[in-house]
């Protein structure tokens, strides 16, 4: 069998993670998957070694456009771990608020895209409209809709003004009913159940052996959340629940993300109400030689940074491990045996970026039939239409 891989669909270097998946199929069934990475390797680890500790924070902020605050968060914790030192209490709360706001908008973004892949463009519109509200909140708090530039080793760069807090609290409260409507619409829909339940199941055993992280692992019954287990910032000072589901299919991954959004709003509100007064920056001067590790729970799972300092003002080595690096290989366990029309949503279920699914080609073991990203989204949407008719809905 000749192994030719044809990339179909637009190349999106503007969006992060342009991976290339080649699916080997036998008729409708997927029998194998191979992932190619590195189309947009930017050499951030090397670049970071040429910047000072303060500058590197901004470099790592640009690793991901969606979870832009997770990387500076993990990096700052890694630098603080070299000492080791604690940041001021107020900075801890502000960090928590920013990180949770980001989780809400990231989960909503995913929910919208998942809706689009399944042919539910109404979900896409609703989720992204709601996401705008959160982006407004982030603009009030940090001055930016994304890439908040709030973090620095030793604390945060910008204080939250007292007069902004009631405005933000009101806005968060106003989101909850709409979000609840969206939750019911998504979780009670019979077509969506038929479309996502039992699809792309990741067993607990596989989740553990692949080292799956975040919602991908928690949907498979792995009760691990760094915010609970290895508490950092202000997470141990607020009341919230870890969302764990057991089946590991696309539906459970969806439910985990939707329910986590509510928990994040809870955390944000508690932190804003209980925000202690005081310094926001420990003003660290010299980073001593040594090594440090920072890890935080990003929207997609644990974000891990290892930093080594040789006593100068630049990191001697900076290793970045994004959560998708561990979540991507779980495709080997989830996609084999599924149909091509389910491939898009299974690949999207771990919450990689949009272009990951865009750059996907299908090769038949017998013929040379090939699909590009758009064809696959269409296939997926057609299956939902078919199910709708069968179930007599809409």
């Amino acid at each position: 069998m000749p192994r030719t891989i044809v990339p179909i669909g637009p190349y999106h270097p503007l969006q992060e993670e342009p991976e290339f998946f080649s699916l080997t199929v036998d008729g409708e069934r997927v029998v194998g998957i191979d992932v190619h990475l590195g189309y947009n390797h930017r050499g951030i680890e090397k670049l970071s070694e040429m910047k000072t500790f303060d500058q590197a924070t901004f470099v790592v902020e640009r690793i991901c456009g969606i979870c832009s605050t997770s990387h500076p968060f993990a990096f700052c914790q890694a630098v603080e771990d070299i000492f080791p030192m604690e940041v001021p209490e107020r900075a801890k709360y502000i960090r928590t608020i920013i990180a949770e706001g980001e989780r809400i908008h990231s989960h909503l973004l995913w929910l919208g895209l998942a809706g689009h892949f399944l042919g539910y463009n109404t979900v896409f519109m609703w989720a992204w409209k709601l996401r705008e509200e959160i982006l407004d909140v982030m603009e009030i708090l940090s001055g930016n809709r994304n890439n908040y530039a709030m973090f620095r080793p030793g604390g945060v760069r910008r204080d939250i003004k007292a007069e902004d807090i009631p405005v933000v609290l009101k806005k968060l409260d106003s989101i909850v009913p709409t979000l609840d409507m969206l939750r019911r619409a998504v979780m009670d829909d019979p077509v969506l159940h038929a479309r996502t339940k039992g699809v792309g199941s990741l067993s607990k055993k596989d989740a553990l052996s692949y080292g799956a992280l975040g919602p991908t692992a928690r949907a498979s019954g792995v009760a691990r959340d760094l915010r609970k287990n290895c508490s950092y910032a202000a997470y141990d000072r607020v009341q919230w629940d870890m969302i764990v589901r057991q089946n590991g299919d696309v539906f459970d991954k969806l439910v985990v993300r939707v329910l986590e959004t509510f928990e994040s709003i809870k955390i944000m509100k508690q932190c804003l109400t209980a925000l202690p007064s005081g310094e926001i920056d420990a003003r660290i001067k010299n980073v001593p030689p040594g090594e440090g590790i920072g890890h935080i729970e990003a929207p997609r799972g644990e974000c891990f940074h290892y930093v080594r300092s040789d006593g100068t003002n630049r990191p001697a080595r900076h290793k970045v491990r994004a959560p998708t690096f561990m979540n991507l290989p779980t495709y080997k366990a989830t996609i084999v045996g599924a149909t091509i029309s389910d491939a898009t949503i299974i690949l999207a279920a771990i919450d990689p970026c949009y272009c990951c699914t865009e750059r996907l080609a299908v090769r038949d073991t017998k013929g040379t039939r090939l699909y590009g990203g758009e064809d696959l989204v269409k296939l997926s949407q057609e299956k939902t239409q078919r199910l709708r008719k069968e179930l007599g809905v809409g």
Partner: protein
Amino acid sequence: MNRETVLQDLRKKFSGEIVEFMEKSPKRVYIEIKKDSLRKWASYMIKDLGARFNIASGVDSRAHIEVLYHFTLEDINLIISLRVRLKKTDLEIDSLGAEYPAANWIEREIHEILGVNFKGHPDMRKLLLSDDWPEGVYPLRRDYKEWDPNAIRDRGV
């Protein structure tokens, strides 16, 4: 399970395999190990202690290439990093990728950027670098000087 008993057990069980045992802080422990005992360590960490393999980081510290294997024990909020120092003339170490899928990709990455050979790795293709990247050139080494005027990557286009 608590931190003290875990660390005591490690010292006792691997007394002959430890080069340096450093308790940096209550949450971080770095253990330099002999490179031949890596598989034994990994098996004990993952299977017996139930630790989660975070990732490995490769570091070129000029005299050596270091590979650190980070494990998280979530129940007791502890990260144990196993450090292996490799001489630049002998960059070979046992692969964990065959037994633990979580280590598969990172070993491919360290192999191509630092030139560490992972013995027994099931699939040592390139992960991040392009397929036409020259053999034996490792971009994250301190002595990396490769510059090719014809290559797009070096013209900065």
